[in-house]
């Protein structure tokens, strides 16, 4: 492995670490205050395309070390796409089967990508009728496979697995600390499994207790894959409110329009969850005026073409002869 020359013996050597951090790029144009420096950490530069490379790798290595996974005992995992894509690509490269249980509303691109990287796909209609504790058919179906077929599947369970937190505590947090040379004052993240916020916040606050940790979440009834509204967080066991200073709720349509802004004004091909985080960061910057912020941008826009069209119908205009 040679990070300087960027020559590697396998894709796994590209995984992010303090020595090989995902890039941080400054946001130049849409800044409400010149005294506030704002950077985005581009997690789509990770080898399997998203922030989920970190949790997927940590969970897979842990399973390997504990002898829980083998060529005859694969992985089953509920996923809105990114964890599944990272896990499936890694698992298949190491010779394991991967079954991904996916909510129906996940965009087609992600479902097809899961198949491209070799996952077996179960699509679940998750949102038939709002009810307490039952909106997580994908989690329940994955648990069912893992329980009924213990000999064939192990479920990493990103919603409960401490390795998800550990991954961010040992990579994302230290990378940001090093890349900002300790100047960070604000961390902006979204909430899904809460692995990123819990792990990165734990590390950064350990280094500098005053770092403000701001989580941005979409309004209820949202259509931003991978994210959870606070009222949906009962599904995850990794949510620790003591490590978060503020939770901002942002109209989920802004996730799509802000992602478009990033693509068109920054040359940053960010997906909707990044758009949502940017909107949250802008609101805090307007209030706090000065600081050094880092946003963790989970993935890029390529997987959301159909969702972008759904929310910004004008994008489809003129695409047919």
């Amino acid at each position, binding site marked *: 492995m040679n990070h300087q020359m960027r020559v590697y013996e396998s894709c796994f050597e590209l995984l992010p670490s303090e020595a090989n951090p995902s890039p941080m790029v400054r946001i130049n144009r849409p800044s409400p205050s010149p005294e506030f420096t704002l950077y985005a950490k581009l997690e789509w530069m990770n080898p399997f395309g998203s922030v989920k490379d970190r949790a997927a790798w940590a969970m897979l290595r842990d399973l390997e070390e504990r002898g829980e996974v083998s060529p005859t005992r694969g992985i089953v995992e509920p996923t809105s796409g990114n964890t599944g894509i990272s896990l499936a690509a890694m698992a298949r490269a190491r010779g394991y089967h991967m079954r991904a249980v996916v909510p129906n509303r996940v965009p087609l691109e992600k479902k097809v990508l899961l198949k491209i990287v070799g996952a077996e796909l179960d699509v*679940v*209609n998750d949102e*038939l009728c709002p009810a307490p*504790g039952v909106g997580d058919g994908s989690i329940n179906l994955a648990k*069912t496979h893992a*329980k009924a077929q213990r000999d064939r599947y192990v479920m990493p369970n990103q919603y409960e697995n401490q390795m998800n937190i550990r991954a961010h505590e040992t990579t994302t947090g230290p990378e940001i600390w090093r890349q900002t040379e300790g100047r960070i004052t604000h961390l902006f993240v979204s909430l899904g499994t809460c692995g990123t916020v819990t792990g990165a916040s734990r590390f950064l606050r350990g280094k500098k207790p005053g770092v403000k940790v701001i989580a941005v979440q979409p309004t209820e009834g949202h259509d931003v894959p991978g994210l959870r509204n606070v009222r949906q967080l009962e599904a995850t066991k990794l949510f620790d409110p003591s490590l978060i200073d503020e939770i901002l709720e942002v109209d989920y349509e802004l996730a799509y329009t802000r992602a478009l802004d990033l693509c068109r004004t920054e040359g940053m091909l960010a997906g909707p969850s990044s758009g949502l985080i940017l909107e949250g960061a802008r609101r805090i910057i307007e209030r706090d005026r000065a600081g050094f912020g880092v946003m963790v941008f989970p993935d890029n826009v390529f997987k959301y073409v159909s969702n972008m069209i759904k929310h910004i119908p004008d994008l489809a205009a003129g695409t047919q002869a």
Partner: protein
Amino acid sequence: MAAYAHPEVLVETDWVKENLGKPNIKLIEIDVDTKAYDAGHIPGAVGFNWQTQLQDQVRRDIISKEAFEKLLSDAGVSPDDTVVLYGDNNNWFAAYGFWLFKMYGHRDVRLMNGGRVKWLNEPDKQLVTDRPAIKPTQYRAPAIHDEYRARLPEVMEASGGGRMNLVDVRSPDEFTGKIIAPPGLNETAQRAGHIPGARSVPWSTAVNADGTFKSADDLRSIYLNQAGVDPNKDTIAYCRIGERSSHTWFVLKYLVGLNNVKNYDGSWTEYGNLIGAAIER
């Protein structure tokens, strides 16, 4: 703390575990997600598909008495068996199955409190993929209880007169007419809104986060005190196609203990398609 009016219609997951394999206790899983049974079920449980096995495939109707008898014969059920139903979405379709079993007079049918999610999340409970070996029976439906079912003329009367309680168990957005049906569902109506005079109590109000039913006190408070259901009147529950409302029918009839409760299975997909019917939003 008050008890349920008919506690005998509910069994707990531990009871099911203790009674696994008993010859006169039959387990049947009925899910919204018809893939769930194949992925894993309680040992010995038979799976029914609500789309293909509990509804007439030609007319819009519940299955006929003959079809019900064949279904239960093939599932190895006898009229004297204790049938325990369970399913996903907090027993949503299991409750529909319960209503059907009662319509055809099966004496001892029960719901497993908490449904498949509760069983799934309890470490001492097993799931299997093997289908059980079945010894077919010659099931004959003991009776027909059409009085558990509300038809349109009765609903019209209930709407106008105030003589009956009408309970709309759909989501608030369906009740107010913001949407006609939950996203992605095919069965729908021409118009959105609710039947005039109906009170909105979404079906899921009756369940706890772990999937079990709320306590008798809580249920009485929700339906009688907060929603204003008059326990001295007859009651009709409805939803979109009659399945969520069978859940509320179960709650009102067996847990709260109202006297005369009916499930209007025509529900909004019938009412919302009528020419000239009054609609509130």
